[in-house]
């Protein structure tokens, strides 16, 4: 059985990628199971999707714990533990990353011995949730890596899955996916089917007997004051609003009132100050600012500029 996981951010098309690959396997005569797994259902948040494909009926279900291939559409997810990109990766797992860095850099950084294949990173975009056609590109590369999906089958799967989107969109997705398929030619068949977990020799589950804990400890409730400030919702942001104070006319009540999260404070001079620890990047302030003094900039770019000392 092939077990494949796609990791990306909400908006990057990981569900679509899994469906394209699932359809392609299915058209090649495989039994298939594909599914997305959402955590927080919002744009920019880490999500993953998975595909199982086998010649016989599939009885396994749920999250893939021992993947044969892990596809990472957005390399900024790798260091985020909650995204689970590296979960269950073994020596024979192929890791395919959309990145500007090279294979050995990733192998060293992650301290893994298994094969790492890089997809030449797509063009820089302002909002990473908008990476163009990355879902189709990942599906195309994955289809070649498993080595059992013909180029025409991949194209057929894309036409099926995207049929509602119109010819123009389909053509651009086809172009990107087929290009990725062709680039991976040298690695065709690198991903091999994994085996079933043997019942003869296996790691015994280390079951615990749950002790009784008093309700003070074991009730799933939080008693505290003003602790929502501790949740850094700023991490959700893919776009950052930046105030150009040379154009700000100090009508502070507009942006600070419209901010749905109270993340715009006003200092004693009447200057609005954005709290980037909690701004979720909804860009409502950008839309509302009367003199258009708030600009939306790429969060990734802004972070890079901050670490290199430049102001965004």
């Amino acid at each position, binding site marked *: 059985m092939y077990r494949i996981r796609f990791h990306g951010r909400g908006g990057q098309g990981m569900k679509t990628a899994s469906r394209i690959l699932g359809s392609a396997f299915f058209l090649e005569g495989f039994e298939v199971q*594909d599914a*997305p797994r*959402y955590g927080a259902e919002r744009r920019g948040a880490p999500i993953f999707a998975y595909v199982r494909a086998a010649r016989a009926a599939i009885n396994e279900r*749920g999250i893939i714990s021992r993947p044969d291939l892990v596809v990472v559409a957005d390399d900024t997810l790798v260091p985020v533990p909650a995204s689970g990109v590296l979960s269950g990766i073994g020596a024979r797992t192929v890791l395919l990353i959309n990145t500007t860095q090279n294979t050995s850099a990733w192998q060293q950084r992650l301290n893994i011995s298994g094969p790492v294949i890089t997809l030449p990173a797509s063009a820089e975009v302002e909002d990473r949730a908008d990476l163009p056609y990355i879902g189709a590109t990942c599906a195309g590369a994955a289809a070649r890596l498993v080595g059992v999906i013909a180029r025409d089958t991949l194209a057929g799967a894309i036409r099926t899955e995207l049929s509602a989107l119109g010819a123009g969109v389909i053509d651009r997705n086809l172009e990107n996916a087929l290009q990725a398929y062709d680039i991976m030619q040298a690695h065709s068949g690198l991903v091999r089917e994994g085996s079933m977990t043997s019942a003869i020799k296996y790691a015994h589950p280390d079951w615990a007997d749950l002790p009784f804990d008093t309700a003070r400890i074991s009730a*799933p409730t939080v008693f505290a004051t003003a602790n929502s400030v501790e949740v850094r919702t700023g991490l959700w942001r893919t776009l950052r609003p930046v105030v150009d104070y040379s154009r700000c006319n100090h009508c502070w009540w507009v942006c600070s009132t419209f901010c749905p999260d109270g993340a715009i404070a006003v200092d004693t001079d009447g200057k609005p100050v954005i709290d980037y620890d909690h701004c979720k990047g909804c860009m409502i302030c950008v839309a509302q600012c009367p003199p258009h003094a708030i600009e939306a900039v790429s969060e990734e770019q802004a972070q890079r500029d901050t670490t290199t000392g430049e102001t965004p």
Partner: protein
Amino acid sequence: MSRTLLTGNVSAAWGARLAGVDYVPAFPITPQTEIIETLAGWIDSGEMAGRLVTLESEHSMITAAGGAATTGVRVFSATSSQGLLYAMEMLYTVAGWRTPFVLVNVSRGLSAPITLESDHNDIMAARDCGFLQIHCASCQEVLDSTLLAYRLAEDTRVRLPVIVNLDGFYLSFTREPVEIPAADAAAGFVGDFDPQNARFRASTPESQAVAVLGGSPYSYFRYETHLASLNGLSVYDEISAEFSATFGRNHPAVEAYRTGDADYLFVMLGSFATKAREAVDRLRDAGWSIGLLRPRLLRPFPEESLRRLLAGRRGVAVIDQNLSMGKGGVLHGELLGALYGHPQAPPVVASFIGGLGGRDISAEEFYEMAQTLRQAADTGRTPPPRLLYTRDELREIRKLQAVAHQEREELHR
């Protein structure tokens, strides 16, 4: 016949479409919403006839479903988890009206704490309300069971609403190859709904009244509902045999997988049972004599079939994806009730609780349950109930609790 990749939710919507439903009262909830979205899309584009109306709550939705079914139209609805519980008062009421319709429940664990993922405490909460229950393990079963459910509900020997249950995420959002029956074949199988005396026609207004009754007549009506539900067992066998003959797919009241010569059996409901199927194959590779029983019908409870299929086994592991607080696994208790006093009853019926809130059950855990079972059968001692939960998981919880404790100390300093 060709197969196509469908999610469990879209399979449920196909079931409703092929059954030719007239009316869909709806209210959204994760992970069910895709069902009503799909139906709304088809009705909007004219691919499907019928009316879909969004109600202001699940309580109103079930009231509308029961009311509409009383006027003699074919009704479909869907919900999940908190929504099913919010409708609970009306689940009992419309079953008491003896109105046949089909409700799909997409199983999701209950609050608190809150979760989006699957377990069976929601559907177990509706166990005693009078709705019949069909539990599905694959997307194909979801579609087929929806068709079967209309036959079951509308049969004059039953006349009760039916819930078709599928697991959130593991089926609701998971695509699998599904064969969609031809529209005329499905329509031929389901047939027309003959509401008999229950009807509503223009210009001949009627109202439905339900009386307030004392214990004696009340007992009569309640017990009649119970008898109607029990009739569901033989009616189900009839219609599932007809379904099998028509479509070539067999959906018995109890799935028996590699049970013929098995000394040991897993018993469980729903889509996680396919994991047990996989474990049975691997254990058989390793020389085990083991199989799986999966009741598809929970109400009515197929006691006779289960007794027969469990007779003479050395040990049985019941894996409940639910937890009745202060008692334990619901299916375990029900099975013991069916077996007690029967001479061929297995000496060991062990209880395992697993998969709460979508928590995975690994292949290794199935193997370990089999080991536990063999040990118990050898010693003749039934093990205490076991929650499938590892020391690693407990360590993670302890870490989180330590963080919470520290934060609280700091706040109060």
